[in-house]
């Protein structure tokens, strides 16, 4: 199958990947750029483990072909902490034990950041609804909700 070169900006750096037209964005990030923090948890776009930002908006990177993000800015979990400083949501997940096996965590953190970007002071119900596109099998979600609340508090303060 023919190969296509795609230029994109990933976590602030300009990168080029050479992919098949059918290569999913998540596979390009993981296999070509070595950004293995973005995980694949299903093949029907239900679990959200592969959530990344494209131009500041959260998307499931298993639903996009790499060729669709030509010229776009991508942020993955590896690009969330700045200068060694954890993002408040990352901090929240650590403080509140918002993860166990850690597999859904990168996607869950990305979805949580997106949630707080659009609704900085969500209620518990809004957090639970807002994270509906992401599955976690370990935590029962309560500590994840706490983590988002922690981050919301921290940002407010």
């Amino acid at each position, binding site marked *: 199958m023919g190969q296509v070169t795609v230029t994109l900006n990933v976590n602030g750096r300009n990168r080029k990947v050479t992919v*098949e037209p*059918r*290569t999913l964005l998540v596979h390009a990030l*993981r296999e070509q750029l070595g*950004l*293995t*923090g*973005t*995980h*694949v*948890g*299903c*093949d*029907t776009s*239900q*679990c959200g*483990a592969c959530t990344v930002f494209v131009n500041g908006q959260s998307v499931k990177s298993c639903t996009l072909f790499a060729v669709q993000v030509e010229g776009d800015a991508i942020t*993955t*979990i*590896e690009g*969330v*902490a700045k200068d060694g400083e*954890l993002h408040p949501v*990352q901090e929240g*997940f*650590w*403080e509140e*034990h918002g*993860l*166990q*096996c*850690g*597999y*859904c*965590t*990168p996607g869950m*953190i990305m979805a949580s950041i997106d949630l707080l970007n659009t609704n900085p002071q969500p209620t*518990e*119900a809004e*957090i*639970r*609804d807002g*994270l*509906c596109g*992401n*599955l*976690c*099998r*370990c*935590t*029962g*979600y*309560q*500590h*994840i*909700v706490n983590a988002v609340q922690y981050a919301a508090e921290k940002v407010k303060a």
Partner: protein
Amino acid sequence: MTSPTLPKLIGARIKRREDPRLIQGRGTYVDDIKLAGMLHMAFKRSDIAHGRIVSIDTSAAEAMEGVECVLTGAQLAEFLGPMPILTPFPAPPHYAVATDTVRYAGEPVAVVVATDRYVARDAADAIQVEFDPLPVVVDPDRALAGDPAVLHPDLTNILGQTGSNIALYVPAGTGFDPVAGTVDNSAIDAAFANAEVVISQRMWNQRLVPNAMEPRGVVAHWEPGKDTLTVWSSTQNPHTARNTFCGLLGLGQDQVRVIAPEVGGGFGAKINIYGEDYVACAVSRRLGLPVKWIEDRSEAFVATTHGRDIVADLEIAAKRDGTILGLRVKLIADIGAYEMLLTALVPTLTNGMLSGVYDIPAIRSELYEVFTNKTPTDAYRGAGRPEGIYFVERGIDMLARELGMDPGELRRKNFIKPDKFPFMTQAGNQYDSGNYEAALDLALKNANWEGLKRERDAARAEGRVVGLGMSFYVEICGIGGWEHASVTVHADGRITATTGTSPHGQGHETTFSTLLSGQFGVPADRITIVHGDTAMVKAGNGTLGSRSQVSGGTAIMNAGEKVKGRMAEFAAFMLGAEAEAKADELEFVDGRIQLAGTPSIGKTFEEVAAFAYMGAGNAAGAGMGYPEGGAGLTDEAFWEPAGATFPFGCHIAMVEVDRDTGELAVKKLVAIDDCGTVVNPLIVEGQVHGGLAQGIGQALLEGAVYDEDGQLLTGSFMDYAMPRASDLPRFELDKTTTVSPHTPLGTKGIGEAGTIGSTPCIVNAAVDALSPFGVTHLDMPLRPELLWRIIQGGAQ
């Protein structure tokens, strides 16, 4: 054996040391591993549930660019025998890839090895298989009668029968002598003869798909010339994997290294060693190149073992005052098409838990395990115990309703009383300790039970569909044999400990470093916990059955205690001249080893560690001036509890069903769990939360649904409803503490607790909510449609 001293950090909420890597996407899971020259595998799987393989055409696949080789089951069987299992009962041969007959939809029939994951998948899709279909067995009752087909006609089962779908038959309980094989029915018959009330109900604990968020995966790397095999596997027990690989491949345990890197959840399904793992190893060895296989989610639905799937015909004999006289149960476990590692064992745990927390004078259970044309079952969080407790707790609830008694008071009346422990139940388990009334009282208080009842009645008066439910669980933990640990204090005063348990989210690094930190009086950040690597951890039995703290934690402390004792001897030797210190008078506090009561007489931890390796003089003088026993600070321990531990708890839920949509909302869930001593409450709460979610998932959402052709209809997250954040309430947790006499710290195990208690609790609450509509029992999952039809007056 001397018991370790209690570390002072026990009970502190310590955040996890695993998290910094995981929240930044720096964890390494199997699919993140890339080796030079690595090939990729994909499996061609059967579309049909039962049939003979007539022909397999691999020519199109083989012709594809990038395809290294294609192997059918028959070709693989030439160098890979049937897979080993760990249960002692007769079982049919089970090849990693089907050789002549397929017995469930999704069973592998061929494997493709290619240079790229996409190519491997394309090539697998290009394989053409012709089947001669056989009748499909889906219904366990019919399976029991061998209708419409027998899956394994050549198997002679435990009853000496051939031509039967019965994989295993186990009678148990009062009057059954397993040694003599005799049965005396007089006690159980008398219980029912004397009964004033008999509850009888058929109930189904439905088939579930474990769905760890990380599907399975394996990288196998045979190194020719070195003749060693290194395997990275998403597994709960790397040592078991190593041992079975060695057995099937004819390799020594020194030649095979299994590494469990970050493992993205297991829930019992990653206890198993699967066909794909063996094939990866065998193919890598054959080709001399590393081979990777990563399971797709849609593959996982059919290729990874399922859980539960037991039907019970349950009868309870009781007096009108609520005294339970006897329990009679017939269980049929639908185990699917083959026996995996522990398949046959899991339902026998159901048998053993049928007494619940109750003092039931006569119990008789009969268990049939039957083959059907479905994915094999095996352990899934709770593994046999949730099923048993579900049946008992539903039965007790039905009895309370029949008698018009408060479900809490009926339970209280029949509890095993605290002074009767250790208590041998008629189901055959000896419970170590328990104080069930204390947990009930706390649950009633925290939930405000009487207030909730008033709230429910008021809501009903308004026409709302509201119900209250309670459940009481007990489970068996600390099983799974010995555990191993080693502790080394290095010359620089830092500590490495190894554990044979193998976490996949449970936070062992945090918990075990906390234990050692308290034991040695040094900060936890100077301690590294090594797990999940058979080359670095000498022996182990993995993380399963809520055993890691009980067995692994104790082993670590025992190894630590040995090293600590040796370290005290070094310290005493160093201090001897100035203070005549004795080793047993020294305490380890705040980075110092010092005389108890006279802290000024002591040495720093680092000084003693350095001395243990370098002696009194310089490096050249090493070996001189040591106390008896020589240099070094390293030791190990195997440990196995003297008996199983029995954690327990009480859950209370309030639910409301939407009249218009049938949707059930859990309004309140109070969980009291007693797992003995709690080491890290943060982690224990996380375990309980996750368990509750999975238990509620079973009650309300999840179910593996097969059609009459043996096709799994709920084969993706589109159709298999996983619990999401908005499906769950905020859980209200609390605990009582009844220590186990079998563990030095009094710990009991917590990993599975929430899963066991929450399921019957929610169903009991739903039945209560729908009791005005004449409902006395509902089979799970309680889908909105089911509930809506009941409310609308339709058939159940």
